[in-house]
C-alpha cells in the first residue's frame, strides 16, 4: 500500500466539496458517499450524475457543490463520461471524471451506456451508490435489489437474486473494480484513490444504506452498513486484472438476522427464510475461505 493511502479516519482530508443545505434525506449515506469521495478526489474533479436521489443536490438557484457537476439524464453517465473525457482532453483540462449514479441508473437503465464506456476503457471513476432500489421514485425493485427484500413493487419480497454488477464489470476487463461502503471510510477512500490512479475505467459499487427505502432510523445508517459487512452479506473486495482480493474479512461473522431484522424491508421474512439466507452466506464464505480470500474470476 502506497504511502499516500489513508490509514486512519483522521487522514481523511478536511476540505469538503459537497456541503450542506441540500435536500437529501436526514441520514442519507448516498450524499455522505459523495462527500467523502470528493474529499480524496479534490477540487480538480468533474462530477457526472445520473438521475436519482443525488440529482436533487443542486436545485436552482443553489448548489451544494464546489466542483463542476453535470446531470443529463438517468441512463447516460457512461456516455457522458466518454464524451467528457475527450472534451476535457481537447480543452487541456486535467481533472478526475467522477460518475456518480445510483444502482437503478447503473444496473438497469444505464448499464448499456456504462458498458460502452467500459469497452473503451475510458479514464473515469464510476461510483455506483447502491441503495438497492430505485430510491428517488419511492424504492421500487431494481435488478440490484437483493432477493427477498420487499420494495414498493415487490411487496412480498423480490424473487430474483441481485445482478452481480461487479462481476459484470470485471467481465468487461476494466483495470479496477471494487465494492465499498461508507461505513468503512478508510477502505472506501483508498479504493477511490486507487480508482483515480488507474489509467482507464474504475468501477466502485458503494453500498449506501438508505433509511427511507430500507426502513430504519436515520441515525442507524452507519451501523447498518457495518452489519452488512460484518454479517458477510456485503463483501468488500477489489478485482484487479481478473483477480479478486477481499479487503476486509470479518473475523467472526455476525448472524445475518442481525442485519435483516434491523430493516423494515426484510420484516416479512420468517425465521426459515432468514436461516436460508444465513446458509447461502455461510456457503459463499466457506468457498472464499477455501480460496484464501483471493482468486481469479477472469481468464
Amino acid at each position, binding site marked *: 500500500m502506497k504511502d499516500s493511502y489513508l490509514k486512519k479516519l483522521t487522514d481523511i482530508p478536511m476540505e469538503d466539496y459537497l456541503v450542506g443545505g441540500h435536500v437529501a434525506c436526514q441520514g*442519507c449515506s448516498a450524499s455522505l458517499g459523495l462527500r467523502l469521495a470528493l474529499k480524496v478526489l479534490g477540487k480538480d474533479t468533474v462530477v457526472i450524475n445520473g438521475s436519482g436521489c443525488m440529482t436533487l443536490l443542486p436545485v436552482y438557484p443553489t448548489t451544494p457543490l464546489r466542483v463542476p457537476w453535470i446531470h443529463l439524464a438517468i441512463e447516460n453517465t457512461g456516455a457522458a463520461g466518454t464524451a467528457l473525457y475527450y472534451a476535457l482532453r481537447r480543452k487541456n483540462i486535467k481533472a478526475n471524471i467522477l460518475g456518480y449514479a445510483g444502482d437503478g441508473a447503473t444496473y438497469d437503465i444505464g448499464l448499456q451506456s456504462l458498458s460502452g464506456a467500459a469497452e473503451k476503457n475510458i479514464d473515469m471513476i464510476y461510483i455506483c451508490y447502491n441503495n438497492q432500489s430505485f430510491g428517488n421514485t419511492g424504492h421500487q425493485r431494481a435488478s440490484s435489489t437483493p432477493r427477498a427484500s420487499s420494495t414498493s413493487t415487490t411487496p412480498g419480497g423480490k424473487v430474483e437474486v441481485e445482478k452481480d454488477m461487479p462481476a459484470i464489470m470485471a467481465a468487461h476487463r476494466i483495470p479496477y473494480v471494487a465494492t465499498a461502503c461508507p461505513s468503512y471510510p478508510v477502505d472506501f477512500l483508498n479504493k477511490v484513490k486507487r480508482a483515480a490512479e488507474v489509467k482507464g475505467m474504475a468501477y466502485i459499487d458503494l453500498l449506501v444504506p438508505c433509511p427511507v427505502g430500507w426502513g430504519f432510523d436515520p441515525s442507524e445508517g452507519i451501523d447498518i452498513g457495518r452489519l452488512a459487512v460484518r454479517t458477510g452479506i456485503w463483501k468488500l473486495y477489489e478485482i484487479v486484472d481478473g483477480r479478486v482480493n477481499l479487503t476486509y474479512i470479518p473475523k467472526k461473522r455476525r448472524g445475518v438476522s442481525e442485519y435483516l431484522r434491523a430493516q423494515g424491508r426484510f420484516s416479512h421474512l420468517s425465521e426459515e427464510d432468514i436461516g436460508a439466507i444465513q446458509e447461502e452466506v455461510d456457503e459463499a464464505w466457506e468457498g472464499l475461505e477455501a480460496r484464501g480470500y483471493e482468486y481469479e474470476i477472469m481468464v
Partner: protein
Amino acid sequence: MRAGDRGRGRGDREMRIINISYDGANGVPVIREPASALKNNTGTWRVFRPTIDSDRCVRCGKCWVFCPEGAIHVSDADIWIDYDHCKGCGICVNGCRFITAQREV
C-alpha cells in the same frame, strides 16, 4: 440583432412575454455559485438537536467523517456543529457517547 428586438425576432409580433426579456447566457439553467446551498437553512428539518460535549471529545473525527451534511467542524482547538445545516439525523449521536440529543423546541 437590433436593440429592442431581442426575444422577438425582427418584424415578428407573434409572441408576447410580458415583463420578461431575453437574458442571453444568463437565462440558461446552470448554477454558477459554488456551495450556494449553504444559504438554505436545512437546520429546520431537525426534530432532535445534537450537542457535542467538546471538553470530553477526543477529536477522533468519527462524527465529522460520518456526518452526511458536513455539519460538524473540527479543529484541534474546537469542535462544533453548524446548526443551520445539521438535519438532526442522529448519526453522530449514535456514534459517540460525547454527543447527546435533545428535542428541538
